[in-house]
């Protein structure tokens, strides 16, 4: 009963489509072929830590899972905090599909334990000619991707032209965020 929910102000969060993450290796091949971008071998999952014992235990569980996954795939995993109070799980792996699998595992473990609302985004880092960094951002709540390219000059400026070019290249590869107003930058991500 949708209208009852509307009257009572209840919204149902959209179920995240984590499977979209598995499109990233294909998109990476496309980016390398079309634009010369190579994976920086690093990705990160950004989430807002909730208070409470339960969440802390979930995080511990993830730590254990990550340690296991790291042993299996050779991914190295670390964690960090940022100035916004968000928590980052940083994954390093030169193999793109292992990288994606680990990122997927972090996302799904948190989601399975009912912390979907805590998850913000996953960020994949790519490098172009001359080492300039390009990000492919996955918005957890929207299940969509968008490119984020910091301008080479620094100073929190973004290269919109390059981003639109990437939009062209990524069309059909990954579910792209059609609403440009949601292409939020993520400055100072702890990757690569």
């Amino acid at each position, binding site marked *: 009963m949708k209208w009852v929910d509307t009257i009572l102000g209840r919204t149902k969060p959209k179920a995240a489509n984590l499977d979209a993450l598995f499109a990233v290796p294909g998109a990476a091949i496309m980016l390398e072929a079309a634009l010369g971008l190579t994976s920086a071998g690093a990705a990160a999952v*950004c989430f807002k830590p909730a208070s409470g014992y339960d969440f802390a235990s979930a995080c511990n569980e993830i730590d254990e899972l990550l340690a296991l996954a790291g042993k299996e795939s050779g991914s190295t995993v670390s964690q960090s905090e940022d100035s916004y109070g968000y928590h980052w799980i940083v994954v390093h792996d030169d193999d793109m599909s292992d990288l994606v699998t680990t990122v997927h595992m972090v996302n799904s473990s948190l989601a399975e334990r009912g912390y979907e609302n805590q998850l*913000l985004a996953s960020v994949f880092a790519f490098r172009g000619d001359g080492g300039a960094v390009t990000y492919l951002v996955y918005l957890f709540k929207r299940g969509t991707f968008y490119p984020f390219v910091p301008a080479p000059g620094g100073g929190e400026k973004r290269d919109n032209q390059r981003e639109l*070019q990437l939009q062209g*290249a990524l069309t059909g590869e990954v579910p792209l965020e059609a609403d440009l107003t949601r292409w*939020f*930058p993520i400055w100072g991500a702890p990757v690569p």
Partner: protein
Amino acid sequence: MSTGRGYPRDAGLAARMTFVMFLLGLLYVAVMAGLIAAGVNFAFVFILAGGLLFAQYYFSSKIALFSMNAHEVTPAEAPQLHGIVDRLCALADMPKPRVAIAESDVPNAFATGRSPSDAVVCATTGILRRLEPAELEAVLAHELSHVAHRDVAVMTIAGFLGVAAGFITRSMFWFGGGIGMGGGRDDDDDGAAQWLVIMLVSILVYAISFLLTRALSRYRELSADRGAAIITGAPATLASALVKVTGAMGQIPTKDLRAAEAFNAFFFTPAIAPGFSISSLFSTHPTLEHRLAQLAELERTMGHQGGGV
């Protein structure tokens, strides 16, 4: 058409364009037949409407420049602008149009003139300030495509019926009212009924041709986008200029996701479903999304071709 050898064709776009032009022609024939059947002094209507059309066509560049408060500039006054136009004309193998600048902060550019040899390309000071040189080049390439496609002539002819119908409608109100007041009561009711029918028909015709010319205009815009993308070889640059010019570059936010998230209570709300809106039916330009999608598609295909060479 005058698109040159280097331009790959877009069959779908061309087909839709032809279809709209066909509908316009059909409407034209229908209204002519209707008018003759109604017994209107055909020559009188035609000469007046034709005269108006000719004036619009012949003085198009002067009218446009005057209404935009634009003035022509010499290469010495605007070397950068002239340089870009020179290069593009050499690339497209077309005569160089006159170059004008309009004093306006609204970022815009337009091309006008009845033929490529008579054309004027005009940019506002607002657009000159806002765009990077490469983006300005892409915008001017779009305007030069309009010149090469003879869009002023095409749109004038397409608009002819609208002008004619609008003129007839107005003259019905003037002359029809005048005759009625002049005590033409002895005229049989047939005449009055005829006037009414013609009036209704011309209003209807005007409304339909209005929609069709606007649809045609949107296709010409997409064609010009395409031409510009191909001439400059950089669809993304035109896309970026379009986004800046339409004020939508502001759409791509500069505020950090994590900062924005805290304030955005409606983050879950799905975006409004994309579709065919009323406003896009009436507008002379395609929506930004539509134009960007076409340019993104071009970027893809050109990227593939470039990779193969």
